């Protein structure tokens, strides 16, 4: 790299002042709660917090001795891969299509972005209604096709339901970034490829997709974090982790044990585990996946 891109400050204190607001936000909204979670995870408390005792690693030991908890790692992995995979694929497809629309593009784009304004719990309820075994529109249609839909007792159906709801909720966000990414690709590159005789499919794979890779990588990280952390409301509204524990992803149990069962110690220990996983995953993504990204 011959060209020096970095900006140099002459003053020693100005950079600190400039980053201070951001640092304050990170400290208050990330480090402080994370510290609280770490502290709570080694304590055992009654619901109202009137008595609390230090228990060391007991909260963690209990978790890892629980088969149901271990099983929910697998459930979470499956759920996250499905949500991130399907979410990215579908929104990329939609973005490519919307990018080509010549007339009424704004209308399509607005409708595609709309679901982002819906709260996760509402998204869960919405899809729950559509898939309700006896009265839902979708399950009715499926029954007409000879397919017996019952997410109350069939774990695969229940998983499908929460994946669909979670993906639907996230598509708008992915779509926005993909669309912006596509629009920032210089038209001249695509036209040059077209003149060289590349069809739309080839143009996409050899020109657009590689140039989109920073966006795709960013969205991959964001979607994994979304699937891990922000989907508990969907699970709570749609399946409550059932049938059995078939859709009990890790973050749902954090929510349930903390906010419904009022067992803060265990809930905090679980969020510490979750935090470790996501930090680990993000590191892996930055170390290995990022190497394939062209900026």
């Amino acid at each position, binding site marked *: 790299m011959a060209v020096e891109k970095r900006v140099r400050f002459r003053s020693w204190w100005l950079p600190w002042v400039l980053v201070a607001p951001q640092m304050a936000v990170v400290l208050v909204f990330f480090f402080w709660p994370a510290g609280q979670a770490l502290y709570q995870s080694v304590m*055992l*408390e*009654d*619901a*109202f*917090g*009137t*008595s*609390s*005792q230090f228990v060391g690693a007991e909260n963690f030991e*209990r978790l890892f001795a*629980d088969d*149901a908890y271990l099983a929910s790692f697998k459930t979470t992995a499956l759920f996250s891969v499905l949500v991130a995979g399907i979410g990215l694929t579908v929104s990329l497809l939609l973005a490519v299509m919307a990018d080509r629309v010549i007339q009424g593009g704004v209308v399509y784009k607005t409708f595609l972005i709309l679901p982002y304004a819906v709260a996760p719990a509402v998204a869960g309820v919405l899809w729950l209604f559509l898939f309700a075994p*006896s*009265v839902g529109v979708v399950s009715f249609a499926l029954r007409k096709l000879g397919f017996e839909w019952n997410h*109350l*007792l*069939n*774990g695969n159906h229940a998983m499908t339901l929460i994946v669909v709801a979670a993906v639907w909720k996230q598509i708008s966000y992915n779509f926005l970034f993909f669309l912006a990414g596509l629009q920032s690709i210089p038209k001249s590159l695509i036209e040059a490829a077209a003149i060289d005789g590349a069809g739309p499919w080839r143009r996409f794979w050899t020109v657009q997709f590689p140039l989109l890779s920073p966006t795709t990588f960013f969205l991959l990280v964001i979607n994994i974090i979304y699937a891990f952390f922000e989907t508990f409301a969907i699970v709570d509204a749609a399946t*409550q*982790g*059932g*049938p*059995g*524990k078939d859709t009990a992803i890790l973050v749902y149990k954090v929510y*349930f*044990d903390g*906010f*419904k*069962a*009022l*067992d803060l*110690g*265990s809930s905090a220990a679980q969020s510490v585990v979750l935090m470790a996983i996501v930090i680990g995953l993000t590191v892996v993504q930055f170390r290995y996946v990022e190497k394939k990204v062209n900026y």
Partner: protein
Amino acid sequence: MKLRTFAPALATAALATLAALPAHAQTEIQFWHSMTAVNNEWVNDLTKEFNASQKDFRIVPTFKGSYDESMTQAVAAFRSGNAPHILQVFEVGTATMMASKGVVMPVGQMMKDAGYKFDPAAYVPAVAGYYTAPNGQMLSFPFNSSTTVFYINRDAFKAAGLDPDKPPTTWPEVALAAAKLKASGHKCPFTTAWQGWTQLESFSTWHNVELATKRNGLGGMDARMVVNSPLHERHIENLANMAKQGLFIYKGRGNVPEASFVSGECAMITTSSGFYGNVKRNAKFGFALATLPYYPDVPGAPQNTVIGGASLWVISGKKPEEYKGVAAFFNFLSNPEVQSASHKRTGYLPITMAAFQLTEKSGFYKENPGTDTAVNQMIRKTTDKSRGIRLGNYVQIRAVEDEELEQVWNGKKTPKEALDSIVKRGNELLERFEKANKG
């Protein structure tokens, strides 16, 4: 306007405002509850009536979401010092409330301090016993107590050639009726709401067998689950078989399945007596209430069913003046006329014997056959095995019951495996609760 003319004007205005207020300001009392739909209207009417009956206090009812949501909010509010005066807590949260030292103002004591006569013996024994600490002090005020009952769709019974005046009383009869309903084209002959409460908990007391040791937890926090007895296994096996034959259709957790009865989709359901108000208003068919089915060959069955619903807890650390207001409100709620009216309206239990007798005298039970079912199931003498079920970490135990039973209904586990798992996982939760609340 000059200052000289302005000042007297201001003084007059201030005086006028003062005069508009009552002699001394009203004390406001915050009341958090979880009653929805018809029962929400009921709570609002009760507080309106109380507020109009006197001038010193004003009860402000606030809907705070479902039972578990309002409890979570109360916990957060307590930790930040903004707890309400009165909190409605479901029976599942009773052990948690009792164990939380210094959080609760015992109702018995508060009533005495305020100079009201408060006689726990006036209450239906199964109700009073449930909210009484092992030392004999009544800790919370029974408000909307319910129990598990059995509802049938009379029209569906007629269509299937069954006698709607003779609802099945035993589980073998339920299976037979379900088979006939199915033969007549009914897609959902039987379902159940609150599966853990109706099929395990109330089932246990109804058959006079223990669900947990230590008198089902009433005797102390060291109770452990014993819900894997041969009788429990037999019942879950029976339901699993009904599920296989399409006689029992699983419709979800909590009270979600109730909608399938109101819509007419399911012909029989076991659920809370507090469901009555909803069915009465919304069902477009004839319905009847009956006692919970039982197994006739089990000695001692039927005994009594277990309490559900919620009670009102008074939070500690408020002003004496405010406790007087809470006591006055509870005194108003204890009035037999008020209780009887509430009972008729909602299907919740009358709570005091006087209210039950008053309702009986009014001829309500004769005009509305079956409405005394819940009362009759609860008023019987109770035994040590049937008095009530009060467990720590109960919210999680209920979730465990749901998770394990679902795996029986979808054939992934045998009844024995599921019940053993409930015992194992339940006991871990009980041990943890005991440990957390020891200090």
